[in-house]
């Protein structure tokens, strides 16, 4: 059962034990997945289309519920957790989307501040933390710019600042380099690595094998809803 479990001295932040997910349409997305990701790890999730990567991420964010098995994320038992606790789970994680999902009529500062406002943080803290997050991604000088005035890479960095601003324990990045040029892709992953170096767990889905090869982080490979490889030291082909 614990075939793919990584050994790590730190406690687990994500644990899958015998997890299967079949959609109402009959599609078997995941089958008997067992995985353990420790606090502070940087993990790439790779696999072809339909391999089960999206379902894997959705289960972690509790956008979907497993049909069987047990999932624990950041101390929350997702298989038993009532719906009203989902917001509390998500406050422990930051999410970076492939399509950036910036609100077009809000400037950079407000886009990042939005993530704090909706969880009820006071304005004083918001001002301080947003400035800090924007500086961290190198966009402190673009706080008043609108999203359409930024390049793809800059927009993704705003998305990253938004994911960071609530100081989450876990960042889930769903193909964050999918819509940016190769140079910027390296910059984004470097930023994520820097954030990881400060202790935040990073879980990144990607199709870009070059990135995975160049950044020597743990790689989980999915195929047909099963984990087919789990390499601690980087990509092996």
């Amino acid at each position: 059962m614990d075939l793919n479990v990584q050994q790590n001295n730190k406690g687990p932040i994500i644990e899958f034990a015998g997890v299967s997910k079949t959609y109402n349409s009959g599609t078997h997305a995941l089958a008997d997945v067992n995985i353990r990701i420790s606090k502070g790890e940087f993990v790439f999730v790779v696999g072809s289309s339909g391999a089960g990567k999206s379902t894997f991420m959705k289960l972690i964010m509790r956008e979907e519920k497993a049909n069987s098995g047990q999932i624990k994320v950041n101390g929350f038992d997702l298989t038993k957790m009532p719906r009203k606790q989902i917001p509390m789970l998500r406050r422990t994680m930051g999410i970076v989307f492939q399509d950036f999902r910036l609100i077009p009529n809000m400037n950079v500062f407000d886009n990042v501040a939005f993530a704090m406002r909706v969880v009820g943080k006071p304005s004083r803290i918001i001002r301080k933390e947003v400035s800090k997050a924007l500086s961290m991604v190198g966009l402190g000088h673009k706080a008043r710019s609108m999203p359409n005035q930024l390049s793809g890479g800059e927009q993704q960095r705003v998305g990253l600042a938004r994911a960071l601003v609530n100081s989450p324990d876990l960042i889930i990045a769903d193909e964050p380099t999918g819509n940016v040029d190769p140079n910027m892709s390296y910059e984004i992953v470097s930023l994520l690595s820097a954030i990881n170096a400060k202790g935040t767990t990073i879980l990144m889905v990607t199709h870009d094998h070059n990135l995975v090869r160049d950044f020597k982080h743990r790689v989980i490979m999915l195929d047909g809803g099963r984990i087919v490889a789990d390499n601690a030291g980087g990509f092996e082909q």
Partner: protein
Amino acid sequence: MRLGSAKYLFGEGVKNVWVNRLMTIASVGVLTACMVLIGLALLISFNVDKALGNLEQQNVVMVYFNDKNSVLYGDSAPILAEGETFDAKNITDSQFLVHNKEEALSIVNEIKGMDNVADATYVSKEEALESVKKTMLEGKEQYFEFLDEDGGNPLSDGARVKLSDMATFNETVEKIKAVSGVSTVQSQGELADVINSIKSGVGMAGVWIVLILLVISLVIVSNTIRVTMYNRKLEISIMKAVGATDGFIRVPFVVEGVAIGIISAIFAETLVYFCYRIATDTIMGSLGTSTIVSFSSKALLLLGVFVAIGVFAGVFGSIVMISKYLKKEGSEFSAI
């Protein structure tokens, strides 16, 4: 909830009203129209009630007693003992029931004590004759001098009875008829029936109008909120992703719905005032009636009803609509 969050959420709701201004104008227009119709239906109902109330107050039942004259000239049959025959010239005291004023007053008191009787006053046959002379015989007194002769007054002693509720009019009349000593009761039973049917008809129509318009109001507000939700689906998906609670996501939409409701209520109050003023000026000008309910006496009540409808439609419409969307997750928002 923190004050800062409350201010932010309230501000977002009010901002939505402006951002979606075309939809807001359409919703306020339709909602106002519904409220105006509800307001006018209520004012018509108030006026019908008042008019019927006036009719009810004027509606007096005349009760005539079983005295000597009622046997001689009225509808009362004489009370005859076994084998006794009736001789109009030698009528005896035992052949009728009310012989003097005391007996008449005791019947009046009995009627006064009945349910649904507002008042009952004794009317002697002399007073009745004076009344007939004033109303029916004015200018023709010379032809009716015989009425003043001793024994010439053919009228009976009786009572003027005022009823309080037209709904049980006929039952009360039957009870009065059953009182010992009462000969006949002159009433306008048909009028009571007409009043009652108008009252229930207006009441039913009012209820249906209000219900139908309420449903329309709910649909209108729900649709506006739906458009807002569609426009803000990106924000909602991000809100959910970063851990906003359902309540937090819901508040701006509820504020928007309530704001639309309150704006509509203010417009409706103003419009109803002008419509009613034009209508009452026309009616009072042509009919000269002063029995119309004044707008000022109902202004607060109407505003209260409008605001209640607006707030109800706003809260209910937005909660119903958003609850549907709150169950959606991440990528499902793109499919909306």
